């Protein structure tokens, strides 16, 4: 493992390109952030406006789900290279999380 860091000095063009790419990506992140703020506003506004609970609950849960996907895939780069196993285990975790919540909200004996 001593030999696993090769220093690669990029040419000016390569460097500029990579930098530009990162800057573009950052713009995407800003847009993502705007969407997240917007979704949060919708959720809070719906509750404040006092719509029926049957309408609000599914919608705000959906909005929360979208926000989480945005966080995972954009801010945390889960779609990036080398994230295959990561995504697999996160989905396994979400699956167990889902059945845990499902069990305790439906079949707990009350």
């Amino acid at each position, binding site marked *: *493992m*001593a*030999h696993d860091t090769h220093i690669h000095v990029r040419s000016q063009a390569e460097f500029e390109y990579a930098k530009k790419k990162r800057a573009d990506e950052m713009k995407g992140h800003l847009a993502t952030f705007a969407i997240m703020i917007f979704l949060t506003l919708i959720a809070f506004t719906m509750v404040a406006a006092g719509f029926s609970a049957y309408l609000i609950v599914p919608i705000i849960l959906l909005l929360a789900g979208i926000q989480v996907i945005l966080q995972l895939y954009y801010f945390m780069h889960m779609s990036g290279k080398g994230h295959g*196993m990561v995504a697999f*285990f996160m989905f*396994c*975790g979400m*699956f*167990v999380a889902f*059945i*845990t919540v499902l*069990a*305790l909200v*439906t*079949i*707990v*004996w*009350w």
Partner: protein
Amino acid sequence: MSSIAQKKGFGATIWDFMTTVDHKKIAILYLISGGFFFLVGGIEAMLIRIQLAKAGNDFLSAGTYNEIITMHGTTMIFLAAMPILLAFMNAIMPLQIGARDVAFPFLNSLGFWLFFFGGIFLNLSWFMGGAPDAGWTNYASLALASEGKGIDFYSLGLTISGFGTLIAGINFLVTIINMRAPGMTYMRMPLFTWTTFVASALILLAFPPLTVGLFFMVFDRMFDSNFFAVEMGGNTIIWEHLFWIFGHPEVYILILPAFGIFSEIFAIFSRKRLFGYTALVFATILIGFYGFMVWAHHMFTVGLGPTANAVFALATMIIAVPTGIKIFNWLLTIWGGNISFTVPMIYAVAFIPSFVAGGVTGVMQAIAPLDYQLHDSYFIVAHFHYVIVGGVVLAILAGTHLYWPKMFGTMLSEKLGKWTFWFFFIGFHLTFFIQHFLGLMGMPRRVYTFGADQGWDLFNAISSAGAVLMAIGIIILLVNVVMTTIKNERVGNDPWGDGRTLEWAIPSPPPFYNFAQTPLVRGLDTFWIEKMEGNKKGMIFAEPLGDIHMPNNSFIPFVISLGMFIASFGALYFLDDDKPWALPVLIIGLLITFGSMLVRSLKDDLGFHITKAELLEDAKGGKTDGH
């Protein structure tokens, strides 16, 4: 116990083991402490069988009996079976994938010491006012009513050792994902590595619910919260769910590595490639997946309602299918093989009918209406001992014989091994087979005695006699270990002569860097392929001989765990008015833990390099060529 360790003084050896980050030494630590707890749990089992040997016995009081059954179950599952399996995973898995160590050597050591101190803490309850007495499942309605500190020892001890296990799980997963040698694709990994992988994934996702449940238990008992306090709106069924969401995958955490060990044994001693390798791999993954969807079959009689019971009954029956696939694959591996009946192979062959018997009674209990009859009877006790002893313990004994030369460099006596086997195997069936009938005759579990007029005397006496045979078997094993260690006849790379995977291509025990050169893997059963092609070195190499980077030893894991251990005593007596020292103890313990964690993160620990010259020197010393 490597040859290097023996040249050191006794104190230096102890210090070496306390600071080691070498996966092979940590494996030995796991094996020794797991073996110790196995003996403790075994003594508890013998006490249970003495108490039940005759009707109306007063050898143990009812209260002591409750403590002993609780500690027997808890010790055997958490402190004996799992650590011993972790010992084999640690010792063998990195060698099988051609890695020089696990991904996080420091965390490996931390995981061990957390488990160790957690286990010691739990067992100290015997000397500090009484052990837990609400059963190993610790159901909340019982546990909240339990007086004394026993349950708190249980919650705190299992929390600590649970953290250790979680760390071990993550470590193995990352090791397998990232550290496989070139050419070692997922579908070329030996079955033991595969089962380690899936079992670690189960540890990763199953331990958090247990930890959360244990925290609730601590809060409820010590800080007056109301999670399980029904009069305050709490719900004791939440504990049962959280416990079994962990508890059922736990069963597979135990049995999958056992399957892995047997898969290796069948292939080695039938001198054949595993039949249906791909099917075995996918069955393993499927079992892991289904393992999370069946937990409520432990709770059929709670009253979850017909829909929930039907869903979980069905899921439970389905999980028998991949297990059945495995059984057939093993049978077909033996079929037509050139079989040598060594001790590990005898265990493996005995495992199949024993485990199938346990599996079949499991499917019986999957039928929810029948489970109402069987629940809490000795039929259940018979069932789970058939899967745990007939599966896991037989695998542990088989693995001990199989991997002893790889871990210690010397072979356990085959002759004594066969004696152990016969005593243990006959004793096992004598003890537990008859308990099926005791259960069907109505004998309830967890009751400390029975009446002479109930007609259970003879069967219970037979069961106790069987337990004595099992104990004799284990004593012979201990004698075997002592004699083997004294004789200390060194063996070569491949002591069984038929090794198929990479661990058999390197010396026994391997040098601390495992592979002087990383191997190149050309297919399943890597070492076998090279042997068949007449490669004297046993492997081909993926890199030229060069410097090897190794991690430094560290005392910090021990200190972190010690801090947790001390803090637990503070937490335990925190609310007692007559123990004002509890709070300082809690704070000091946490300071030790977090202080040493801070030292760890602030101090750079970059490891060291073994130079090429040293490796060449080592090779000349004959240590890398055992034959």
